[in-house]
């Protein structure tokens, strides 16, 4: 597996990009091709009586087994001298009719069962679904065979058998949807208005279920054509002189070695028919699937793509272990570009804790992920700037080197420890893996180190906990495991992305105390992402407030808390409840943060700012530093007397 992440020198590879219009078009052209073939086959089959074809059942022993392209017999003749082209078209007609009928029968009864089971619930549901489960406990074709065995061979019996064994697919799909719908408000409303269950089922629910029925039909019709052809092939479906594609193939098989075209041709026809149905069905499904449209089934590559263009890379400022310079991260979704991080400068000294504060969507997490290339590509990319670790440009180093740094010099702690720990591996395995990846230790030493780490983060009886799976631990314990993992290799920089947000308040303060202690003991720098000024005041030396992808205020925590200069900062601080001050107003900030694909000129906060003036809405407003550490991006800052 080669990494597809690339540095500025490498040409961006387009192969792993999100499906663009072109890809969708290609998918669609396959689907269109499928539809075209399908319609053509159907039209020819329908027009069979009108076409100048030989009678498919007239035998001519003198002309038996003529090869393809014979005079008067384009596709040759079979063992009885019957015209193959004519038989093929008439056979297709039969196969299509049987396959479609089976689909409609299965769809009708299956949907009916599903609707009733899903709507009635309770005992009715249990009985119906148990029955369905029983039918599904049989291997699919075997049950059809058993039914044919009972009814006797014949095309109609094969049709019934195939329809019957497909009923469960419809029943299951439709029941699921109906179950969801029957809990919805409009159904309640219909019930309260005195409509009968049948009325509700067929007037209210059925129209909503219809698309699912159609989709299930489109995915099963190909199967049903294949299976009925299969039964005919075995001699259990169409009986002579009646012929469908399957029985033609079955007859041709007997003379496979002498006249292969007699069996090859009907097989090709079945293939063309089923393939065109599947192509069209897949195309339609792809276009309708919301996951594909949203790109949520697009694979992210190992490292965020770096596309810094021709702009010069800003040099390191020379301050701190971690030095972020004018970093810009963008997401390209559905043709528009979201500037999640719009030029951020940060630096972090040894043993220091810097807080990044902002609402959701302010770009703080993306900032944290960008540093080590953990923003998913597609759709994300680093569009400019640099992040230096001890003077080394993290966006320019090799993939191998970034892997060495990840979890080594720079370690992460993420928000929700339940989703960030792998559910199928024990915490011991995951911890040991973190150690073993970066340190050449024997497995006994690794285990010893893992136990040390767990006791370091104050997990009781650490040795036994190694065998626990994440779901067996409490939220606080899980986050401690994550912290232990981050500490495994004596990281210089710890990036904590809302590590306490998913935890309750007492656990939150324990985790904060733990991280604070570890920082002092090990002199590690912490980049602490949070939306909560209360948390900031507990652990951070300095703080940077982010809004719409940019830093709007920065400074020492105590100074910012005591005299916020940006109106946004002031509002955020007001959101923190203070013990013993019940009269304090908990103002949520009115309005929403702007969407970053179309930022207005001037100050991004202007629309929500009570102090906004016309000049706030034009030009670029710079981050003005009033001292080495203090700065604000505002034309009319608050509380400037003390610091100016």
């Amino acid at each position, binding site marked *: *597996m080669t990494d597809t992440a690339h540095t500025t020198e490498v040409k961006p590879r387009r192969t792993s990009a999100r499906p663009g219009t072109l890809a969708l078009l290609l998918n669609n052209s396959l689907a269109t091709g499928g539809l075209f073939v399908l319609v053509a086959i159907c039209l020819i089959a329908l027009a069979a009586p009108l076409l100048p074809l030989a009678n498919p059942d007239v035998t001519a022993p003198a002309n038996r087994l003529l090869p393809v392209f014979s005079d008067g017999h384009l596709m040759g003749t079979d063992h009885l001298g019957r015209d193959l082209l004519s038989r093929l078209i008439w056979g297709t007609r039969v196969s299509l009719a049987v396959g479609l009928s089976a689909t409609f029968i299965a769809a009708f009864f299956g949907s009916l069962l599903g609707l009733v089971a899903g709507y009635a619930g309770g005992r009715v549901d249990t009985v119906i679904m148990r029955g369905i489960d029983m039918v599904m406990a049989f*291997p699919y074709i075997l049950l059809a065979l058993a039914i044919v065995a009972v009814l006797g061979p014949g095309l109609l019996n094969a049709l019934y058998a195939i329809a019957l064994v497909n009923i469960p697919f419809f029943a299951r799909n439709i029941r699921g949807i109906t179950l969801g719908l029957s809990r919805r408000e409009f159904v309640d409303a219909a019930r309260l208005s005195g409509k009968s269950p049948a009325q509700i089922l067929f007037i209210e629910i059925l129209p909503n279920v219809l698309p699912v029925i159609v989709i299930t039909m489109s995915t099963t019709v190909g199967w049903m054509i294949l299976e009925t052809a299969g039964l005919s092939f075995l001699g259990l479906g169409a009986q002579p002189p009646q012929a469908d594609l399957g029985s033609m193939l079955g007859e041709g098989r007997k003379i496979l070695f002498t006249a292969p075209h007699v069996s090859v041709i009907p097989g090709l026809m079945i293939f063309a028919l089923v393939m065109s149905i599947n192509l069209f069905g897949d195309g339609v499904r792809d276009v309708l699937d919301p996951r594909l449209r949203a790109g949520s*089934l697009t694979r992210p590559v190992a490292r965020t793509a770096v596309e810094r263009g021709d702009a010069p890379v800003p040099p390191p400022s020379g301050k701190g272990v971690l030095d972020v310079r004018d970093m810009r991260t963008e997401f390209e979704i559905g043709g528009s570009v979201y500037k999640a991080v719009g030029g951020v400068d940060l630096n972090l000294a040894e043993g220091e804790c810097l807080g990044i504060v902002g609402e959701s969507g302010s770009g703080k997490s993306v900032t944290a992920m960008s540093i080590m290339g953990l923003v998913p590509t597609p759709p994300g990319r680093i569009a400019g700037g640099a992040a230096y670790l001890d003077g080394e440009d993290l966006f320019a180093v090799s993939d191998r080197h970034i892997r060495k740094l990840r979890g080594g010099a720079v370690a992460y702690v993420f928000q929700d420890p339940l989703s960030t720990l792998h559910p199928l591996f024990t915490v011991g395995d995951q911890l040991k893996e973190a150690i073993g990846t970066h340190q050449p230790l024997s497995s006994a030493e690794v285990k010893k180190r893992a136990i040390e780490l767990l006791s370091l983060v104050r997990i009781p009886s650490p040795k036994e906990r190694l065998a626990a799976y994440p779901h067996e631990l409490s939220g606080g314990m899980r986050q401690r495991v994550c912290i232990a993992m981050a500490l495994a290799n004596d990281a210089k920089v710890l990036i904590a992305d809302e590590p306490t947000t998913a935890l309750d308040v007492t656990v939150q303060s324990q985790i904060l105390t733990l991280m604070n202690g570890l920082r002092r003991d090990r002199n590690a720098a912490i980049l602490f992402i949070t939306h909560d000024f209360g948390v900031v005041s507990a652990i951070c030396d300095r703080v940077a407030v982010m809004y719409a992808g940019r830093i709007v205020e920065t400074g020492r925590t105590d100074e910012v808390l005591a005299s916020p200069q940006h109106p946004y900062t002031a509002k955020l601080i007001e959101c923190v409840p203070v013990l013993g001050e019940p009269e304090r107003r908990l103002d949520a900030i009115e309005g929403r943060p702007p969407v970053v694909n179309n930022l207005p000129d001037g100050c991004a906060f202007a629309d929500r700012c009570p102090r906004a003036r016309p000049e706030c809405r034009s030009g670029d407003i710079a981050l003005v530093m009033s001292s080495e550490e203090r700065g604000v991006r505002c034309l009319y800052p608050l509380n400037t007397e003390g610091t100016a």
Partner: protein
Amino acid sequence: MAAYIVRRLLAAIPVLFGLTIIVFLIMAMIPGDPATAILGSYATPENVAKLNRDLGLDKTLFEQYVIWIGNLFQGDLGRSYTLNRPVLDEVLERFSATLILAGTSLVLCSIFGLLAGIVSAVRQYGWADKAITLLVLIGISTPSFWLGLILILIFAVNLRLFPASGMYAIYGGGDLPDLIHHLTLPALTLSVVATGVIARLTRTAMLEVLRQDYIRTARAKGLSERKVIYKHAFKSALVGVVPVIGIQAGFVIGGAVYIETVFQWPGIGSMLVTAISTRDLLLVQGGVLVVAAAYVLFNLFADVVQTLLDPRLR
């Protein structure tokens, strides 16, 4: 874990009982008089009545079922009138041949399907992904019985690489290499559709897993991309794919009916087709029952494997 397996086994018992009821009822619903069917339409009424008594058909349906299931527990599935031997003997003999064929196919489709799905997901929208997606679509659209014929034409008739039919060579065969030689074409043919289905599902499962937070964690730890994909992502994807493989077992056994007919493999599928044509219903009944029971047990096995993989299910 052991407790779970026991629980799961116990839960399978009612399903197996349900199977016997369905199989019994299907056979009981045969239109017309079985005795007349067996003796022919010129049979005397006395002979028909005697046969009915011999077959126990003068009793109620419930009594018939109790007798039938009682015999079943003693390993008695009746006697095949076309072969004139106990149904159970014939069925077990044929079933072992089917197991060899279907088992091999299931292994093949699991390996190829998983590999193709992973490659397809990892190289999403690359040429390998496009090629695999197209092949999968062709695979699941091709009638397997026709594909078998084509393969016979190419590899047995023209290239003479593999035998066209049978399980062992008539003269001098009977050992493992001979079996593999005969097995190759039918096993490959049988695995095509299931390979496609498994590949498709593996691709989707991998793509979903690769978006998960714990994959980001694995990357943040500094793991190589190989470990991220083949250890962390694949294990999660497998949890979703294993039950599908269990269900595919049913399609593979069902598909064996065609393939055994095409390649004249002496398995239970070709036996069933012959038995249906000759109206040897006891043989059909026994065959269907044994295969269905095996399918239930196989799905049970898939469930246990899934539980072994995912501790949350325990």
